[in-house]
């Protein structure tokens, strides 16, 4: 069941998920992927979701993005405004469209939403500028590095001006250094208009660095086992928070929560 849940006019929206379950039809009957998932993300909050591999994180994001239907439970969806997308999803891995230029990739969401050509090019340029890729507008994805391609994907999602930004391990394929750069950039962009973000990752460090709150998911079938607030101020300086004793304590606590689930996931 889907219901509208944004504050009229502000365009801000939170995420409200209650009793969400999803089972896939397997050869030996239904196999559950998500079991009674319940959590909320407040409007303007940056929340990270971590869990062992295969616990249903991607399934959850795909339900929130409207790509698949849940078996049971409810999800709040922000109301769609003309020229804006309710929720935009940044996909995992190589998700630039190889046959489109960088500019066309960024404008793609606007194009299928029916935004007129001139306006969508303008908005695409603006968001390309935001991720520092304006000079590569006419390049094709194969001419870019993995980090640049991932910037294109983020710009494509932001160009649709979504109320909610869903991110599915967007930096998983990057090397450590580029990952740090992109995390910095993401936070800088987020700081500008404070969209609601749900960020799936398997990296504890990434979760702590970026988010206000970390949701921990169990091994499959996934449900939220616990949530841990991140008591670090903003804007964040990665140099400084590394030395903050709270950082180490938080990392240890999250690993304590996650360890059992990872072991359980490996056993099954």
């Amino acid at each position, binding site marked *: 069941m889907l219901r509208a849940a944004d504050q009229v006019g502000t365009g801000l929206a939170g995420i409200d998920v209650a009793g969400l379950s999803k089972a896939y039809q397997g050869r030996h009957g239904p196999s559950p992927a998500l079991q009674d998932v319940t959590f909320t993300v407040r409007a303007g909050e940056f929340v990270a979701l971590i869990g062992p591999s295969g616990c249903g994180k991607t399934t959850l994001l795909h339900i929130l993005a409207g790509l698949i239907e849940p078996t049971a439970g409810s999800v709040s969806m922000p109301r769609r405004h003309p020229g804006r*997308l309710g929720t935009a999803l940044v996909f995992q891995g190589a998700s630039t469209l*190889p046959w489109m230029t960088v500019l066309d990739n960024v404008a793609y969401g606007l*194009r*299928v*939403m029916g935004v007129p050509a001139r306006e969508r090019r303008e908005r695409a340029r603006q968001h390309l500028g935001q991720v520092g890729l304006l000079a590569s507008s006419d390049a094709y994805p*194969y001419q870019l590095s993995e980090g640049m391609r991932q910037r294109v994907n983020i710009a494509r999602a932001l160009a649709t001006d979504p109320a909610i930004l869903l991110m599915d391990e967007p930096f998983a394929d990057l090397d450590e250094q580029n990952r740090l750069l992109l995390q910095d950039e993401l936070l800088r962009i987020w700081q500008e208009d404070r969209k609601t973000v749900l960020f799936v990752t398997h990296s504890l460090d990434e979760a702590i660095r970026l988010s206000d709150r970390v949701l921990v998911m169990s091994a499959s079938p996934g449900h939220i086992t616990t949530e841990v607030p991140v008591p670090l101020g903003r804007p964040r300086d990665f140099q400084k928070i590394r030395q903050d004793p709270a950082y180490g304590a938080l990392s240890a606590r999250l690993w304590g929560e996650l360890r059992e689930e990872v072991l359980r996931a490996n056993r099954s």
Partner: protein
Amino acid sequence: MKARIADRWLALVSPLGLLLLWEGLSRAGLLDARFITPPSAIGRTLVVLTRTGELPYHVGVSVERIIAGFLLGSIPAVALGLAMGLSRSVRALLMPIVAAIYPIPKIAIYPLIIFYLGIGEASKVSIVALSIFFLVLLNTMAGVLGMDRTYFNIARAYGARSIDVFTTIAWPGALPSIFTGLKLGMGFAMIVIVGAELLGSDAGIGFLIWRSYQIFAIDVMFAGLLVTAVLGWLATITLDWLERRAMPWRTEHK
């Protein structure tokens, strides 16, 4: 770049070498020039046939038939192949027919086609269209099915309608496979058109070869074969060029 130019020169070595060997064996009297025309004599025949306008006429007729048949066959094949790749039900509906008709040698259907369409252009264009249709169809479908599912999810996540998915995802994504189908189809089109012209026609390269057989003009038969080979080569070059133009987004070929 240097290596690529070198490759181009190397590509000339084997055909030129073969012609030289052929000419040499003929001059040495090891090949009987009355039965196996040496390249130099084939060249003279080509010049004469070109001067009289006979060769350009027959080549023109065959090329027109191939181009018309290619368009007639490939356009519906691509549209249907995309639809079959995108929709499980369309696939389930049409696949049995395609699988049954695909393996029939198309030239075996030619007598029937003549029976229905007569001996004129319509039957030649149809046999070319038919011979490439299934190749392009199956390759297009396989191309769509082989695409990364993420591309379709991206389209759907932004609310793309079916027509958007068709034009912005499936069509460009399947282009590499479509070209594979077109290139395979070009080979079949050459085989089939010359075959059809041999069987029942009053013009075209196949007809030229058949008529020369009937009057024992062996040099003209060789000339016809040579022209067919060159046409096939030109067709390949044209398709390669089109492929690069159609897909500037592909990594440069090594």
